């Protein structure tokens, strides 16, 4: 709802003349909804900032939240929405901080007395506050979305640790959905760890993967091939009965890749193979000495 320059200046004058009482009441109403999670002083400061920014925007003549003149006000509202979203406040608790101005205005204007002038002023102010409220709500939603996107990214990183199980054996326990993005992270992590630790064996444990379809299988196969190119042998473990039956029915072939039911079996297999090759080398060396 557009308001005229005259209405804007009347609202600005109102904010000026009753500044102290408005801020007081505004803070009070807001505090009631966010009780205990923000101090009175913090709230008062936020309300004062909002009051100042709104006052400045109204002073520019015809009020328009989208105009350049309201830039500072938008920034203040955005900042508040973002900090509330990060602190875990609900959308309602955030919007109340803006809508509380209406409660404060009702008291200051004495709207209930039925004075026509006061009512007209209240309608104007109410329209402005609604705009601010909607803007705050939108910003809040956007902040939450950004927060979720960040968390998803963090999860991507978090959920793919490569652990050293034994001298020469590293393992990567996969949990959850293995989509292309995660598969890429997994492969990079694994290959880097193989270089860093100089391990000849890597165990890919899929106990935590709920379903192995052709895409997941393809990602695993590619990782194994990449590891082989670097001279490391991969063992796929954690193949539960239902996964085994599904893989067979799908027709996926793991070829000559070693697969085991449990991580323990895979580790035993790796250690035995390391032991055998060491003994093989040892006897060959002895044989050479004796000859």
């Amino acid at each position, binding site marked *: 709802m557009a308001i005229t320059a005259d209405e804007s200046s009347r609202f600005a004058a109102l904010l000026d003349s009753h500044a102290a009482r408005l801020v007081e009441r505004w803070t009070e109403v807001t505090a009631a909804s966010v009780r205990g999670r923000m101090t009175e002083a913090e709230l008062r400061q936020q309300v004062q900032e909002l009051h100042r920014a709104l006052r400045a925007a109204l002073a520019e003549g015809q009020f328009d939240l989208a105009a350049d003149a309201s830039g500072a006000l938008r920034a203040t509202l955005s900042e508040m929405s973002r900090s509330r979203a990060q602190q875990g406040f609900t959308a309602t608790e955030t919007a109340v901080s803006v809508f509380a101005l209406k409660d404060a205005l009702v008291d200051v204007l004495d709207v209930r007395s039925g004075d026509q002038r006061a009512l007209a002023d209240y309608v104007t102010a109410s329209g402005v506050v609604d705009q601010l409220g909607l803007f705050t709500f939108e910003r809040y939603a956007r902040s939450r979305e950004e927060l979720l996107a960040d968390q998803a990214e963090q999860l991507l990183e978090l959920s793919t640790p490569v652990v050293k199980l034994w001298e020469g054996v590293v393992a990567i326990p996969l949990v959850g959905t293995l989509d292309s993005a995660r598969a890429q992270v997994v492969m990079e992590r694994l290959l880097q760890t193989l270089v860093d630790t100089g391990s000849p064996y890597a165990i890919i444990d899929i106990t935590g993967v709920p379903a192995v379809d052709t895409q997941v299988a393809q990602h695993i196969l590619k990782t194994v091939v990449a590891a082989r190119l670097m001279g490391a042998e991969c063992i796929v473990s954690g193949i539960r*009965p239902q996964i085994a039956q599904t893989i067979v029915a799908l027709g996926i072939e793991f070829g000559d890749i070693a697969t085991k039911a449990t991580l323990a079996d895979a580790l035993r297999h790796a250690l035995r193979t390391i032991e055998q090759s060491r003994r093989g080398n040892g006897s060959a060396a002895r044989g050479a000495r004796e000859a």
Partner: protein
Amino acid sequence: MTGRPDLSTPQVVTINSDADVVRVRQLVRTAAVAVSLSLVDQTKLVTAASELARNTLVYGGGGGAEVGVVDSGRRKGIRIVFSDEGPGIANLELALTDGYTSGGGLGLGLGGARRLVDEFEVQTGTGQGTRVTITKWARSM
């Protein structure tokens, strides 16, 4: 959003991104548990749904999946219909051949999905989009 979906009427999921494939998979798993499919059958059905949902996304250019419970009177099952308005499959027999792919996959998705379920039906043709219906029955009530 996080509540258990009501399966008395078929649930429709639109498939337009990888995240939607995950949603289809979760819905199918919930439905499979609801009609008491065995763990092996649950996994087979979820895997088949995953393959077909991805086909809908990758080859069909997006579409939808409809997940519902069917009851033959003797036993219950899950029926899922995947449909898209994509280019369709010109040679269905070839597409069902193991190892054949027109994309970059393993070429096992469509044929593999057929082996994972009890009933499998494809309606398609060049320029007609594709509609795949699969059903998995619970072994006993």
